[in-house]
């Protein structure tokens, strides 16, 4: 037993529980098996012995009934014969004749049903019956022949009575025999039943005993198992709980005595280790607490001393303040008026003196920064709250806008990240104006506005465009390539009908792709995310390119394509690709909706603008549709058969592009006569466009915090040493192209003014600019170095850079500091 227990300690708890359940289950199964065996034994006699004896009883009873009938019919016959003879009443004769066959039938039945002995008896009976019936018939016949006396003699004769007696004796013999047998049968059956009951009783008793014994055994096993489980599983758990209680009460030296090697053993071990560590930690903590308590006591004493000193200082201050109070009350009235105005401003506002010491904070600034006004006033602005740049680096105090404005004596507009009292941050546009009186700076006012929402909206807009384009184009790519793979027969042969419909699908897929692109173009145009790539272009050339592309189509449709230019060369400073897109959309529409006649493109050069128009002789547009013609997804009338279906966005894109060029687009149409679209592009000089661009970038940068670099490239004309002015012009042209290509890579804008080029690079700060300028100057030298010594002279140039926001906050400031540099 001991050995057994030792082995069990190593068994896992789960295994132990499974073993216990297995034992219980097998005991239960044993009880069930024994019970069913016992019940089988009880059933045996019930199914074989009793039915047999019951069958015997049933047959005996039936034959007995026949014997009774035979006796009864015989009496009737005897009586009927006698009555007829003595009374002569015919009714008795008929009665006799009726019952005689019945008797015969009954006897015959008895012969059939009986066993060998019964058969013999009944055959004898039948023989004697035949004899006395014969006598009786003779007697009846005598009466019929009126020989009454003879009849009487026959029936009173000893022969007749002997027969009768014998007959009845035979019947009695049978009844006696059968009666004996009946009794036997009954006896046997009842005996069987008795023994059966006794036997069953015994069996049930025995089964009860067996089942009882087994149940007792089961209970015993369950108890043993219970004890076993309690000993090996629950007791250790109880031990653990007791241990935990001990430790909970602070007895950290208690250890749990469980040495089994199962999970609980492990738990106990871990628990003991934990207790030990807790004890160690607690000891350390106690000594630390003592240490701190001591320190605290010392500090309390110190601060009490300080308080006494402060108390004295406060008294002195109170005296001064009382004097001041009088003066303050006088100023109050005037001040209240300004306070009301200042607190109603939606932007944060902080006023400082000439040293940057905070004098006033409005309610909005308190709200935005989380500091209370009275905790800020009197502090230096650099110490009151923190400012960070976009890289989350702290802005040094002298670089803060307030100090910059005081030092440079001018208004500073910038952006910065403000750090709130709770450490959270928000981006803000900040403006600081110096306060000047009598030519002397007496302070500064900082106004700041939270721009996190604007930045967030801007970011979301950009992200939306990019996400939509990605999310729509990805499935479209799979669909398009799937259809193409089938259509290109890469996946197997394709029937003519399949080709037809797959081609239609492919066309529609491409149309969907164009719609997505157009939608993105529109959303970019509308959100101002398109940068025009302007250059001096000849507008007639751009129009000719478009016309060339449509010539074949017009010819096929039997349409005349005319052009009318006010001069062959009409220069304009614009984005060529974008204007080609406008012409393509307008001309494509005109051809699509014109069945006969002509389409005419005209370009007229006016002093301040260029006016272009596309006129057709098509079906025209009704007056109500005319209002919606530049709207998105507006399509009027079905496209002619065989033509690529439009996207319904072409005209809104055209409108967007024209407006990006500061132009106007309009439509004029008479239903049934034709339509004329025309747009007007103002002639902007590069300088206008450049400064407009600069202004726009600066405006965006206020919200966006992005830096801007302005770069100038000066090439002293006479220093190129070129004799031929034509060659020099050519060189400048090449340099211009180079510069433009260079600026384009960075979404820059370029301006040429004589020998000088100006380039605008958004998003590039001073740090990044160094590498860029270095590369540009190496590239320039490499590209434009005179090829040989003969073309004497050197190619010299000067590169200068200024930066927003460091070198200025407005366009004029930046340009003037670039010129001054």
């Amino acid at each position, binding site marked *: 037993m001991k050995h057994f227990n030792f082995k069990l300690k190593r068994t896992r708890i789960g295994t132990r529980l499974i073993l216990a359940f297995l034992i219980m289950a097998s005991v239960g199964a044993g009880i069930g098996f024994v019970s069913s065996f016992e019940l089988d034994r009880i059933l045996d006699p019930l199914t074989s012995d009793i039915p047999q004896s019951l069958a015997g009883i049933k047959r005996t009873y039936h034959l007995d009934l026949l014997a009774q009938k035979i006796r009864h019919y015989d009496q009737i016959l005897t009586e009927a014969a006698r009555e007829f003879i003595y009374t002569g009443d015919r009714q008795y004769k008929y009665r006799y004749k009726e019952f005689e066959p019945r008797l015969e039938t009954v006897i015959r039945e008895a012969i059939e049903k009986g066993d060998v002995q019964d058969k013999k008896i009944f055959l004898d009976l039948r023989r004697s019956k035949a004899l006395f019936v014969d006598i009786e018939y003779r007697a009846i016949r005598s009466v019929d022949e009126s020989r009454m006396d003879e009849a009487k003699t026959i029936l009173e004769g000893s022969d007749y009575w002997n027969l009768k007696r014998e007959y009845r004796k035979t019947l009695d013999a049978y009844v006696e025999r059968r009666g004996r047998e009946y009794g036997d049968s009954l006896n046997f059956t009842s005996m069987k039943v008795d023994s059966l009951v006794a036997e069953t009783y015994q069996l049930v008793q025995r089964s009860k005993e067996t089942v009882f014994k087994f149940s007792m055994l089961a209970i015993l096993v369950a108890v043993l198992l219970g004890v076993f489980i309690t000993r090996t599983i629950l007791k250790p758990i109880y031990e653990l709980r007791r241990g935990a209680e001990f430790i909970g009460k602070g007895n950290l030296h208690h250890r749990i005595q469980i040495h089994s090697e199962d999970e609980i053993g492990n738990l106990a071990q871990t628990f003991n280790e934990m207790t030990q560590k807790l004890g160690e930690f607690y000891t350390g903590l106690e000594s630390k607490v003592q240490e701190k308590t001591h320190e605290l006591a010392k500090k309390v004493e110190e601060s009490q001393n300080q308080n006494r000193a402060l108390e004295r200082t406060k008294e002195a201050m109170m005296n001064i303040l009382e004097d001041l109070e009088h003066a303050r009350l006088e100023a109050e009235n005037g001040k209240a008026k300004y306070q009301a105005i200042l607190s109603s401003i939606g932007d944060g506002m902080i006023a400082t003196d000439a040293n940057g010491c905070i004098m006033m904070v409005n309610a909005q600034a308190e709200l935005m920064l989380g500091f209370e006004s009275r905790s800020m006033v009197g502090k230096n602005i650099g110490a009151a709250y923190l400012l960070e740049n976009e890289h989350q680096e702290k802005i040094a105090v002298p670089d803060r806008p307030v100090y910059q404005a005081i030092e440079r004596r001018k208004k500073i507009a910038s952006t910065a990240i403000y750090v709130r009292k709770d450490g959270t941050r928000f981006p803000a546009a900040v403006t600081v104006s110096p306060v000047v009186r009598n030519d002397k700076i007496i302070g500064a006012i900082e106004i700041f506005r939270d721009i996190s929402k604007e930045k967030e909206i801007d970011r979301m807009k950009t992200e939306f465009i990019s996400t939509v*384009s*990605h999310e729509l*184009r990805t499935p479209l790519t799979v669909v*398009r*390539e*799937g259809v193409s*793979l089938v259509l290109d027969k*890469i996946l197997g042969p394709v029937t003519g009908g399949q080709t037809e419909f797959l081609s239609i699908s492919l066309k529609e897929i491409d149309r969907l*792709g164009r719609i997505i*692109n157009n939608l993105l173009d529109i959303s970019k145009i509308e959100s101002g995310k398109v940068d025009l790539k302007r250059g001096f272009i000849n507008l007639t050339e751009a129009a000719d390119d478009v016309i060339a592309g449509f010539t074949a189509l017009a010819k096929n449709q039997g349409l005349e394509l005319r052009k009318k230019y006010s001069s062959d060369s009409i220069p304009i400073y614009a984005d060529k690709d974008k204007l080609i897109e406008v012409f393509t959309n307008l001309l494509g529409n005109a051809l699509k909706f014109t069945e006969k006649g002509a389409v005419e493109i005209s370009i007229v050069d006016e002093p301040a603008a260029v006016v272009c128009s596309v006129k057709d002789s098509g079906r025209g547009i009704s007056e109500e549709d005319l209002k919606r013609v530049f709207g998105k997804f507006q399509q009027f009338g079905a496209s002619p058969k065989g033509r690529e279906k439009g996207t319904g966005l072409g005209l809104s894109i055209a409108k967007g592009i024209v407006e990006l060029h500061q132009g106007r687009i309009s439509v004029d149409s008479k239903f049934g006569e034709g339509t004329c679209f025309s747009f007007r592009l103002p002639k902007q000089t590069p300088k206008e466009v450049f400064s407009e661009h600069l202004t726009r970038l600066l405006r965006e940068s206020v919200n966006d915090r992005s830096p801007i670099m302005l770069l100038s490239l000066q090439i002293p004309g006479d220093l190129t040493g070129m004799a031929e002015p034509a060659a020099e012009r050519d060189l400048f042209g090449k340099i211009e192209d180079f510069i433009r290509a260079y600026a384009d890579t960075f979404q820059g804008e370029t301006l040429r003014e004589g020998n000088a080029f100006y380039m605008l690079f958004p998003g590039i700060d001073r740090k990044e600019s160094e590498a860029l300028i270095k590369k540009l100057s190496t590239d320039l030298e490499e590209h434009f170095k005179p090829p040989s010594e003969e073309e004497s002279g050197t190619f010299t140039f000067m590169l200068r850079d200024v930066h927003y926001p460091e070198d200025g906050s407005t366009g004029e400031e930046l340009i003037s500091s670039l010129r001054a540099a």
Partner: protein
Amino acid sequence: MKMQKKKVLITDDEPNIVRVVAARLQAHNYEVICAYDGEEALERIAEAMPDIILLDIMLPKMDGFEVCRRIRAEEATKHIPIILFSAKTQEEDKRKGREVEADAYIAKPFDPQRLIDTIALLINAPRA
């Protein structure tokens, strides 16, 4: 002598795109290797040394630009032509692509003929 098939690595996080492009390239007798994120792409390149790489930009774990930068930084792989393959057609992405020295940029949805032509051109005229 039988010519060895050229190996193309297709990288895209959209398995269906990888599948259709692979079908097309296999029909043009290329051996196709697939990767579904940036890190996997680098693993495949190291073990299989493809002749050309088709690289989606918006990839999980590491974006296409970064994958491109790492391929160019590695002596063993810097000669492999790279085609950036993206559903974004913003100019900014094309510029970044040039910056990380990708050889071509194909926008999705793509013209299959252009893809095949570009691959053939870049494989036959590898980088200097």
